[in-house]
């Protein structure tokens, strides 16, 4: 049964990927234009569309995985990868990058990534000063850090040149894969793929992080390094993805919940399904972003809209979110 579901999802992933290659606005959306001798079309197809679709696949899997890991570590099915102020801080970093470097994409990405990691470090430092439950302290510190950076984003928007910089910041904050190229894809893979491989092999033991600390300790989870490594890996995943795509919300929250509905709560089953579903969902959203209207629509709008609808479906269909 489980094998069947997994095979079905893999087939679905391949199908959606191939279809996404064919969807686009160029030449009235003729899907097989790249077969013609039109040079521009071929270039567009091989240099822009393919890397973009693959980037959507990769960041979708990554964001969903980061969400799942965060939910496990914080024992909370409604957590997501942006929980520790990572999203807002990365947004702040990107906005700052746009202001200072006039939209030079490498610097914007580096700033987004750097501030995302900085948010984690600040959250950890603050939580160390709070008495009581460590995990709860970390969440509280994260909320505070998140608020500070979102105020910071407000200031930067206010300061930005309304003709040229402000739209860039707003567009970035809404998330988009419009800037994807092979270079961006490879740069993303360097961080994301090793982390995915790590969690792939760690997929069963990750379950222990969802248990009460004393019980996990008794079961051999004695070393704090495992907890911090998992948490750091999920934050690296989130902030490196946000740094190239902007803030693409809801994937990390909603996809793991649907994955658990399909595959059950055991992370050795839910991780593969989370990776597949995240990729499929994000590619579909990005197809809509690219092709629905003559102009590009920010990706984050679709993930939020569809994600929220799926969330409502989840609430109605299940008495308990697991």
């Amino acid at each position: 049964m489980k094998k069947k579901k997994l095979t079905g999802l893999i087939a679905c992933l391949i199908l959606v990927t191939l279809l996404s290659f064919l969807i686009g606005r160029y030449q009235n959306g003729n899907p097989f234009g790249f077969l013609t001798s039109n040079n521009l079309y071929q270039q567009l197809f091989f240099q822009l569309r393919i890397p973009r679709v693959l980037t959507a696949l990769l960041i979708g899997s990554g964001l969903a995985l980061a969400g799942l890991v965060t939910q496990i570590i914080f024992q909370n099915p409604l957590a997501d990868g942006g929980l520790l102020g990572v999203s807002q801080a990365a947004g702040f970093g990107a906005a700052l990058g746009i202001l200072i470097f006039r939209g030079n994409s490498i610097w914007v990405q580096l700033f987004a990534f750097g501030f995302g990691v900085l948010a984690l470090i600040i959250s950890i430092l603050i939580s160390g000063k709070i008495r009581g439950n460590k995990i709860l302290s970390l969440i509280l510190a994260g909320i505070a850090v998140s608020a500070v950076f979102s105020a910071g984003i407000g200031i930067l928007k206010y300061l930005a040149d309304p003709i040229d910089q402000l739209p860039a910041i707003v567009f970035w904050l809404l998330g988009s894969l419009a800037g994807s190229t092979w270079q961006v894809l490879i740069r993303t893979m360097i961080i994301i793929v090793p982390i995915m491989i790590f969690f792939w092999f760690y997929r069963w033991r990750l379950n222990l992080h969802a248990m009460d600390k004393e019980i996990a300790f008794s079961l051999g989870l004695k070393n704090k390094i495992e907890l911090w490594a998992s948490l750091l890996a999920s934050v690296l995943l989130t902030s490196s993805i946000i740094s190239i795509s902007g803030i693409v919300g809801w994937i990390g929250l909603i996809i793991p919940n649907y994955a658990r509905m399909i595959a059950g709560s055991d992370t050795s089953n839910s991780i593969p399904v989370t990776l597949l579903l995240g990729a499929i969902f994000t590619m579909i959203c990005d197809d809509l972003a690219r092709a629905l209207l003559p102009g590009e629509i920010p990706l984050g709008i679709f993930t939020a809209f569809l994600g929220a609808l799926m969330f409502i479906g989840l609430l109605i269909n299940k008495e308990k979110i697991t």
Partner: protein
Amino acid sequence: MKSNSIRFNNVSFGYSGRKIIIKNFSFEIPTGSRTALLGLNGTGKTTLLMLLLGYIAPLEGKITLLKDGQEFPITEMNGAVGYLSQNENIPFDYTMQEFIMLGRAPHILKFNVPSEYDFKVSQKIIQSLDLASLAYSKLGEISGGELQRVRIARTLAQEPEIILMDEPMTHLDIKNKKYLNGLINNLKETGKTIIYSTHDPLDVLNFSDRCIIMGKNNKFEAGETERIIRSKTLSDFFEIPITVINEKGNKSIVVH
């Protein structure tokens, strides 16, 4: 051969900046015994269990395991000390089967998944605890008594030498309580050491070989149940007049 035991050697503990909860505890718990920790709320029963688990370290003194003439810190017993907490937060809805399998963690490498052998071990435990009919049920669907049994099954899947239970009887009805007691007796026969906390002296009298009674101001006494569960000791530790009746299988505790 020297008898094996868990040894508390002058152990003290208190959370930093707060008052000492356990002070100069020295006693031995023979392995293979059923030992009860008895005392009023707040006398440090759970703290003592946490020390045994190695989850917290003593401020002073040592807790060691004496085994076949060798003595080593209890913290070195990776996975060999099982722990059943009083309440457990289970945020995700595992099936019973998946949940019990988690008990195999100490036997599975970090970057690996359960093997066929792990599956067999957990199946055997599921059978022995009469849980087979629930194997694919979600934990959210079963009763409190069943959940307690499932959690015990997970602890047994761990194949621990020592099992710590924090007030395992507290939320159970009479039927489940009787079942648990039967189970504890069976485990004793397989040579496991069982240490559990309770605040009911009658449970201690009925179901344990040894007792550590804990009172206010770091007072404690340890020894065989018959020696500890006496009218004078109980009245002293519980601060109310108590009479213990224990003759020819007729056991009861009368609170005046």
